[in-house]
Each structure stands twice: as C-alpha cells, then as structure tokens.
C-alpha cells in the first residue's frame, strides 16, 4: 500500500475541536511525500497540520511561499492536483477538500521545492523590476528565443493534453430569489424568502453552510452560532421550493439576472462515481439576486511579508476553529483593526504562545484591546512588524514603533514561527461589479462597498461592509423578505433578529504600507501571486503609469489566477498615495467574470465526444450500415459515401473499385441512392404560384399540376443561391426541393420573404424534409424495377409517368410520391416515402431490382455521375456564380420580375472575361485533376501568374468515359473549347495540362432521360 508509511504525524493538530472527523483519517501525498489528514480538511489545513510551511514558489522571484489564506482568495498555495487526464494546475490548496489518496505537487520550482534554481532571480531582483523583460530584451535580436525561456521561467503550472476522463455538464434553473453565499446574512435571506414561499436557490462556495461562523467563536441566542446554522439548514431543507447548493461558486452575474455558478459535484472525491458529473455549470435565471458574498481580508505590507508563516489573521482563526490546526507554535499578531486582538485571544486560548500583539493604530481605548490586555497579552500600539526573517519559514521578525510619518523607531527582534496579519476586510464586490455595479469608497472600513447597480442586485452583510454578526443577520432577513415581496409573495411577521454577544469594535485605521527597517532594504509585497512589490508600484508611478488600468497591466498587479483578491485595493491605495490623491479619485479596476477560475471543460459541458454535435440520420441509415456503407458527413447528416461488399476491408483501391462499380451499375443497369437529405419544403396557399414565380429566376406560373420543374433561385445580389426541383401537387400546393446544404437557409429565406418582403402573399411554407424519406432509382432498367415494385394500380409507363411527371402511387402497401426526375442523366425516378416506411420501400425496390443487378450507390458515385453530366452543385454554385457563368443565363425569365433580377446586368456580371463553366480533361488522358486547382495559361510564367479560373469539382476517374474529368470555371471559357491550359496546385506542387471541353461528358442530348 502506497500510503502505508506515514512520514510525519500531525504535529500541529489540536486534540479537540474543529469540523474535522478524527475517525476518518485520510492519507495523501504532497510532492511525493506521504501525510495524513482528516475528513473535513482542505489540502492547506492538512499540510499545516503536518507542519508543512512551504507549499510553492513564487511566480517571478521563486521565493518560497506558504499558505496565506483559508479561502478562495489564496495567492500562494497553488498546486498541481491529481495526474494524467485529471491533472489540474493552479489549484488552490485552501479550496481543495482532502480525499483519501489525494496527490498534489508544488509548482514554479525546479528541481525541487527546497532547491529551486530560479531563486537566483530573487538575488537579481533589483534588476527584475516591472517591465524588466520587455525593456531589456524586446526588439533585440533573439527576442523570440528569450521570450519562450522567460515565459517558461515564470510559468503558472502546466496543464495536460490528455483526454479528461470525467463528465462535465450544464444545468439550467430558474428561481425567484438567488442568494449567493451561505454565511449568516445569506442564510437569513434565504430563510425569509423561503418562508414566504418563493423559489429560492442558495449557493455556497465551500462544503458547508455558515460562512465566517465556521471560523469564529460567536454565539446566536446565547448558543454557539453553528447551532443556529444547523437549525436554519434543516428548516431550508424542509422547504420544497428551496434548493441549497454547496460546493458551488457563483462566478459571474450577467444581464437579466442570469448568474453563472460552478458546482464541484465530485471534486472532493478521488474520481466521480459512474454516471455522475465531476463539475456542473449552472445557468441560474433569478427574479432577484442577493449577494451575501462576504469579505476578503487584506494582508499588511511589511518587509518579508511573503515569508511562509505570514498568514491572514482571519485564516489563522479558520485553521484554529474549523480545522483544529495551529499554524504555528509562537505567534506575532499585527493588525490595523481589532481583529488582531481577536486573533491573539483565540491563539492564546488554543495554547499558542503569543509573543507580541501589534496594533498599528495610535494609542487608544477599545473593548477588544482591554480584553487582550486583561488576558495578559503583550500589546504594543502604533507598532508593527517591519521585517520578517526565515527563508523556508518565519523564524522571527523585527518589530518597531511607527512615528506616523513613514519612519520607525528602534527595532526589536521577536522570535516566532507565525505572523498573523490583518489589514482590514474588503467586501467581495466582484459579482456586484459584474452587473455593472459601481463601487463606492467607504473610509470607515477603508474599502470599496457596493454602490448603484444596474441589475438591482442587493448586497448584504459583510458584502456591503457590515462586518458585525447582528448586522449581517438583520441585513439578510430584510433583504430576503424584500426580494420575496418583489417577486409577489406575501411576507409574514418579521422575526426578531437573533441576539449575538458581539463586542463593540474600535474603528480601523488604514495603513497601506509599513515602513521597512532603517538598516536594510526589504521586499514588501503587495501582490503575492504576481510578485508585485511596493517598489514596482512606485516605479510604475514614476514612469507615468498613473491610472489603475495602466498600473495593472504594467506591473501585472492583480492579473494572476486570484485576480488580485488580496492585493488590488492595497495596490490602488499605494498608487493613490503616490499620486497624492484620495483613493476614490484613483479608482479601482472593474471585476469581470469569473470570480474564481472555471475549467474550460465545465463550459464545454457534456457536448464533447459522442455528444459534440448532433448527427442526423436518414430513415434508411440502419440498412446502409448493415450493407457495408462507409459514411461521410454532409452537414449534420451521415450519408453513405460508398458501399463495401461483405468481408472486404476498407482500402483506397477497394474504395475506388467500389465507386466504379456503383457508377457503372447506374449507367448500364440500375442503381438506388438515398437522397433523403435534400431539403423538402411544402408550399401551400392561394398565392403559392405567384410566390414561386418571384423566388425562382425561371418561370413557375405555367407549371401544370402533376409536373416537376428544375428551378434556380438567386440572391438579392444576383448570385445563384440554390437549385432544385419544385413539383406542383395540387392547384395551390407545391413541393420544393433544395440542396442538402441549403435546406434550412432556403426555408428561412422563404419565411423572410413572406413575413417581411411580401406580407401580402397568402402562402404557408413548412419543412417536410423529415416526413419523407427519399430515394432515387436511376439507370436504363429503372422503369422495369419500379414497375415490378409498384403495387397494383400504380402505373409507371412513359405515358402514365412521363419525364418530369409526378404521381401518387403505392409500393409495398406504402403510399408514395413518384417523381420522374434525374440527377444522374439516366432514366430516373425519385421516390418519396413517409419516413417510417422508408426502409420497407427501399427493400422492396432492392428486391425488385435484384434480377436487374440493382446496386445501391453513395455520394462518390453520385458525384461522378453528375460531373459526367455537367450538373452543378454547391461545388460550382459557391456564392460567386451567376446564371450565365454556369450556362443557364437563358433560363432567367424575361417576362417577370424575380429576386436578384435587378442585379443581373451589373458590369462585373457581363464582363466577357468572367470565368465560365467548362469541362476539363487531362491531355495525357490519365492524370487526375485536383479540385481547387488554379487554371493558368502557363505554369512556367514568373509570378505573379495570371489566374484564368479554377477547378470546381473533379472525378478522379469517370468509368463511363475512361479517364479523369473535371468541371471548372475559365475566363472566356466558351471561346477556349479545344484549347489547353494548366491546372496547377502549388501547395502540392502539382500541375496538369488540361484540355477545355464542353461541360457534359455523357449523353449531351439527354436522350437517356426520355426513353
């Protein structure tokens, strides 16, 4: 067993307390070393419990870093989690729930965490200021070489190229009230809205409800606050219309109260159970949004404030209370607010030796301070840590008094292995900001609070700077009730706000940087993830980057995966100090989604692999598959490309032979092809004839009932849009067919004309593509086969069903529509069959054709057959081609107006040099002519070689004429018949001399159609 030997026991674990389950020890590995934690731990708390202080290296200077926080804001403790296809770089150890067998490795170090060569950057750091690389290397020869190395040296972990074995999915939901955040204010809001009967969704980022209450020793109604949380959770669980999603982060707010949330369904497990998603992306559409997103504590900026062992004070309390971990044995606490005292008292209570409590504020009274003093703690006011020592973990620090003017008094060394620091709390206004919400500066807490909000989101509790528990609860109750009311629910009696035992706090006094000691230079970090120091900000200011947006991009402040959660405000405040302006004037950068990183896999959801995009199958698909069809994609459709005989394996030569056989069968006997994919549009209404006459370039008014006609429609700019046959089924009833590719577009165009352009026409159009399976029976024996298959009473003689005739008939007891039309140039019939009977009729035709050697054929043979006949498809009608270009100019009616007519005479369309459709054959009688080749007079001409045209489609071998043929467009092509030009394909270094011929290689008179 891999985890059999546990190297280190949990040296920093408290004997009691916390939300951990001591009966469920979990083995895990970090950088290959075995440890043990408990269920309920995060990777960060488990590492701290084992006395692991260094968990990563910093981004630029490669300085050893430890855990700073206990939440989503973590800038330092980023690890690569799991391996193989499941590997995830930049995972925040503070958010990774421990599971048995967890494996993680540290990042940004080589060869190891303890010895990282790039740490030399730290020694050279006086050169590595903001913009250093660009200033030094960019523009010099070799920048491209250096750039790669420089970026590799920075690096933010490495991803994987392996297939992710897990399932991801999306979920849509709607609610009246969405509450983001499951702390006291969020719970109170959800409770009130839920009691009113509203549909409520509460999303909570962590694995449990309670928010900060999980990390503090507070009471509600004289009982531990977590009891109130449990009671509230139970009440919410009993409400049918309330959904509580834990392990779910609301990461973005979008217009119309759409909130994106990521649920980590199985991230806390080694692997998701079968059929379960690993992560689920929620699209939540809410009537009202309540933001109870809490606040994030700010670090203090002092010398060596990035040393492993320097932690946020609130995080220290989280580790003490929620995880029963003491992050150190001897602590120094430094703060610009009362949380310093709170933390020191909690540390002392947990048995940690509190060496010094430093309050940066000037001397003054306060209930918290009095408590600390009463507890016998050594409190210094107007004092701070000025430098922390200890490369691989804090061993001590210099403390000094502050003179209030940027100077320090005498320093004194205090040994310690933990420095708990608090610079105050910044409300998490990210989601508010996504909704175009303004941020207002609040001097009282030295932070931005939510201001006006276009989307009407309401922030409550700490998210709007109300840090007290009683305030948070009353805020939540009020917002929940108001939101439910706004959604039309009646609100009952407002309950009394629960009673708390809070101690009044004295006001915070902002201090954005603590001066360094007088006798040495120190690094004071603002952004720990991006290694931005106070000096970088000063430099940016000196160099003129005085806007927060420029500062951000020049120094990379706040541009890490943490998006500056612990650094932005301090950085902006320091810029404001440098500019000598108030912070609100300098402003802050706008937050953009996502609040925390979201894996691309979650956005992709289930739509990958088999489910990547829908596949469309014809009614005869299964028959094709059973009879050796090799399928090819045609848009969403799968169509038979050709058929392999049983027992034959797929190979190029086999394919060529199969296709040749299929073509020969159609020309000499009879073939059957599935043409269900052609678009079919049912057109009915008193004005149907007039409508068709307007959308087709050729005339349709005179088409009699029971007849089909080939039609061409143009775009409004005169270019050929689509072609197909349209049949008149009744006086006011037509069936239009379109090409496979343009079926949806043609229908949309017809709807557009009817709804917008000619609302006076009374016509209804409906796609019936799916209703009718369609098959084309073609070849000299086609009539004999059809006659044999047709039921009694269905006559298919040349008189009963002449060329372009349309009749209703019956085959195998199935009512069918029979059209005598041909794409192959042979005697041909198209049979339309209600789709559920498609296979029955197909099989009946195959059976009837057996004596005649009927052969099913696929797209390849169909392509060759139509090229032999010079019939155009989208290879020719490619959106650049006019009727004249394909020799069908005379089809355009001169007696009527039609779409595109007004453009037919524009100079470019009647330019004699315009390429025209021609046939092409290789002069040597055997070389294939590549489709897409360029036609030139002489490939030996020095560039630029004048282009005469291009090859549109090519049959590598026409079995009927015995050599390769192609269709192309050639300038003055009609005048060049009999001449030779060259088809060149420079990408493959091919050039073929080709002879220009008529674009019809078989039966130019069309005699085979009329038999």
């Amino acid at each position, binding site marked *: 067993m891999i985890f059999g030997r546990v190297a280190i026991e949990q040296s920093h674990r408290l004997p009691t307390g916390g939300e951990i389950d001591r009966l469920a020890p979990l083995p895990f590995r970090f950088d290959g070393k075995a440890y043990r934690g408990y269920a309920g731990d995060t990777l960060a708390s488990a590492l701290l419990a084992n006395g692991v202080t260094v968990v990563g290296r910093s981004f630029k200077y490669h300085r050893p870093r430890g855990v700073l926080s206990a939440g989503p804001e973590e800038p330092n403790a980023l690890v690569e989690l799991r391996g193989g296809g499941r590997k995830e770089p930049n995972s925040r150890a503070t958010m990774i729930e421990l599971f048995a067998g967890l494996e993680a490795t540290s990042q940004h170090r080589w060869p190891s965490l303890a010895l990282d060569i790039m740490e030399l950057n730290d020694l050279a750091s006086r050169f590595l200021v903001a913009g250093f690389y660009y200033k030094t290397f960019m523009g010099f020869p070799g920048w491209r070489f250096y750039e790669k190395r420089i970026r590799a040296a920075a690096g933010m972990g490495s991803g994987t190229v392996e297939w992710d074995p897990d399932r991801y999915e999306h979920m*849509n939901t709607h609610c009246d009230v969405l509450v983001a955040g499951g702390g006291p204010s969020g719970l109170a809001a959800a409770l009130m809205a839920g009691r009113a009967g509203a549909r409520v969704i509460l999303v909570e980022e962590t694995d449990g409800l309670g928010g900060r209450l999980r990390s503090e020793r507070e009471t509600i109604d004289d009982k531990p606050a977590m009891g109130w949380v449990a009671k509230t959770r139970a009440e919410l669980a009993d409400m049918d219309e309330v959904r509580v999603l834990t392990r779910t982060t609301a990461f973005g707010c979008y217009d119309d109260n759409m909130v994106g949330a990521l649920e980590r369904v199985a991230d806390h497990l080694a692997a998701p159970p079968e*059929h379960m998603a690993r992560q689920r992306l929620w699209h939540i559409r809410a009537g009202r949004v309540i933001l109870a997103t809490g606040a994030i504590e700010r670090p203090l900026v002092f010398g060596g404030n990035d040393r492993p062992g320097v932690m946020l004070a609130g995080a220290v309390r989280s580790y003490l209370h929620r995880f029963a971990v003491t992050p150190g044995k001897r602590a120094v606490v430094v703060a610009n607010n009362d949380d310093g005292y709170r933390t020191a008292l909690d540390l002392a209570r947990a048995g940690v030796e509190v060496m010094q409590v430093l309050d940066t504020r000037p001397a003054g009274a306060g209930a918290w301070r009095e408590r600390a003093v009463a507890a016998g703690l050594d409190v210094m006011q107007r004092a701070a840590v000025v430098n922390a020592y200890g490369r691989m973990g804090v061993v001590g620090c210099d403390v000094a008094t502050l003179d209030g003017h940027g100077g320090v008094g005498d320093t004194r060394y205090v040994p310690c292995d933990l420095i708990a620091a608090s610079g105050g709390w910044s409300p998490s206004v990210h989601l508010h900001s996504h909704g175009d919400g303004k941020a207002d500066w609040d001097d009282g807490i030295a932070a931005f609070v939510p201001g006006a909000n276009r989307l009407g989101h309401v922030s409550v509790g700490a998210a709007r700077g109300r840090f007290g528990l009683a305030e948070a609860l009353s805020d939540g109750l009020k917002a929940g009730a108001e939101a439910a009311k706004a959604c039309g629910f009646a609100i009952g009696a407002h309950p009394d706000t629960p009673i708390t035992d809070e101690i009044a706090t004295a006001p915070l006094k902002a201090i954005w940087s603590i001066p360094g000691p007088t006798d040495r230079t120190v690094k004071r970090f603002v952004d720990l993830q991006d290694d931005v120091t106070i000096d970088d900000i000063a430099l940016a200011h000196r160099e003129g980057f005085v806007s927060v947006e420029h500062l951000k991009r020049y120094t990379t402040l706040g541009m890490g995966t943490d998006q500056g959660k612990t650094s932005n405000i301090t950085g902006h405040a320091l810029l404001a100090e440098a500019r000598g302006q108030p912070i609100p004037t300098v402003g802050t950068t706008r937050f953009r989604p996502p609040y925390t990183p979201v894996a691309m896999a979650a956005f992709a959801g289930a739509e990958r692999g*088999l489910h990547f995009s829908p596949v469309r*199958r014809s009614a005869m698909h299964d028959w094709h598959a059973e009879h050796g069809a090799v399928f090819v994609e045609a848009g969403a459709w799968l169509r038979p490309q050709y058929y392999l005989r049983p027992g034959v394996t797929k190979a190029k030569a086999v394919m060529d032979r199969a296709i040749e056989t299929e073509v020969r069968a159609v020309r000499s006997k009879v073939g059957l092809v599935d043409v269900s994919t052609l678009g079919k549009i049912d057109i009915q209404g008193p004005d149907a004839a007039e409508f068709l006459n307007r959308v087709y370039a050729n005339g349709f008014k005179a088409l009699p009932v029971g007849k089909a006609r080939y039609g061409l429609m143009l775009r409004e700019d005169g270019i050929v849009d689509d072609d197909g046959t349209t049949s008149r089924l009744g006086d006011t009833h037509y069936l239009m067919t379109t090409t496979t590719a343009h079926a949806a577009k043609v229908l949309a165009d017809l709807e557009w004309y009817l709804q917008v352009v000619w609302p006076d026409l009374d016509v209804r159009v*409906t796609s019936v593509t799916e*209703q009718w399976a369609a098959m084309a029976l073609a070849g000299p024996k086609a009539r004999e086969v059809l006659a044999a298959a047709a039921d009694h009473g269905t006559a298919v003689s040349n008189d009963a069903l002449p060329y372009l005739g349309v009749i209703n008939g019956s085959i195998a007891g*199935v009512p069918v529509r029979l059209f005598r039309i041909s794409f192959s140039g042979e005697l041909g019939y198209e049979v339309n069959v209600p789709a*559920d009977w498609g296979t029955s009729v197909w099989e009946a035709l195959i059976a009837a054709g057996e004596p005649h050697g009927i052969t099913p054929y696929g797209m390849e043979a169909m392509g060759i057959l139509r090229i032999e006949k010079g019939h155009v498809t989208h290879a020719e009608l490619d959106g650049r081609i006019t009727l004249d270009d394909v020799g069908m100019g005379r089809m355009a009616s001169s007696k009527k107006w039609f779409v595109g007519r007004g453009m037919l005479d524009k100079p470019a369309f009647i330019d004699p040099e315009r390429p025209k459709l021609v046939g092409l054959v290789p002069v040597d009688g055997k070389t294939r002519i590549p489709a897409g080749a360029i036609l030139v007079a002489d490939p030996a001409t020095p560039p630029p070689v004048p282009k005469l045209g291009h090859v549109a489609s090519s049959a590598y071998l026409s079995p009927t004429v015995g050599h390769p043929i192609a269709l192309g467009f050639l300038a003055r092509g009609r005048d060049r018949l009999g001449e030779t030009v060259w088809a060149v394909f420079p990408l493959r270094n091919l050039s073929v001399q080709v002879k220009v011929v008529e674009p019809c290689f078989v039966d130019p008179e069309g005699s085979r159609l009329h038999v």
Partner: protein
Amino acid sequence: MSESTTPPPRRSALANVWHPGDHGRIGFTGPQVTLRERRDITAIQLDAQRGTTDGVGKAVAAAFGLGLPGPGRATTTGDVRALWLGPDRWLLQTATPADLEPRLRSLTEGVGGVVVDQSHGRTILRIEGAKARDTLAKSTGIDLHPRAFAENAVAQTSLFQLAVTIDRRRGTSIFDVHAMRGFAVHLYEALLDAGGEYGVRLV
C-alpha cells in the same frame, strides 16, 4: 407488380438503438426517469390562411370538440391533442384514428385550412419521473417548474442542440419531447447520458 395493399408496420428511428431496461445509476428507489417512445402517432400540422383563423377553429371544434389553443398551450379532447406551434399554426396529434389527415383536409380546406402531414417527421419521446425535469434542464433554458410551465404548456426551444417542442402532459412531471426524426438517435443518446446519474428506465 406487387400485391400489397396495407402498409407494413412503421419503423421507429430508434429501432436499432432502443434497449428496454434500466440504464445508468440505479439507486434504492429505482430509476428516477422513465423514457418511452410514443410510436405510431399521427401528427398533422394545421395552418390557417390569412383571415381564416376563426373558420378553421370552428371547423375543428365542430368535428373534434376541440378548441385550438393559444400561444404556448395545448388542448386535448378525447384522443386528439392540439399544440400551438406558431401564429395560426397548430399540431394535431392522435394515436387513433390514422385518418386524421384526410379528415382535417376535407374539414378545413374549404375554410382556409392548410394541412401538412408530419406523422413520420417527428420522433416523440415521453420522459417522466421525479428527475425528468432535471434531466431536461441539463440542456434547455426553459423554466419547467409547474408554476411556470404547467400542465398543457408547450414550448419550442432547444434541447441538446436540437430544435424541439416540449409538451407538458397531465400528471406529475410528464413531458413529450418532439424532435426531428433524423436526430432521434442523438436525442435518445443525449437523454440517456443526461439522465444517467438518476437512472433511466427505457420502456
């Protein structure tokens, strides 16, 4: 010349893939989703030409005792169900009789009705069960909660990248999903996949 007079049984687009039984994660309470194909349904699209809405509606009401529904709704009388599909456009469906199309044609064509048979063009899957809604919600943004999408509500929306019609039938969490026949296998595969965590019983 063949002697057949009656058509053979209709072949479902799912004939080759439908394996009755339980699929996915089956908990103590059994599958939370049941999926069945509504086979052999006759489904006729009925349009009213301009200005004939009332006449067409009356003709249908007289023949079937069925009021044509308004936007987003369906109505049922006896064995015939009418779904609103768009302005002056409905879908009438029935399991019997199969002669709905000719009947509608003769009833309404004189008064402006336009009849198009779509019986074979759509595959209809009925999804029901405690987790039917959640299964559908994995891909459609429509609010399927009974407060917003009550019985006889009809929506045309997208589901697993397909254009579908969702018809809420009477009963707890019963939905008919109509999709284009050619995409039936895709819809089936996607529903099985989405419902996998709840367990899917194929009937």
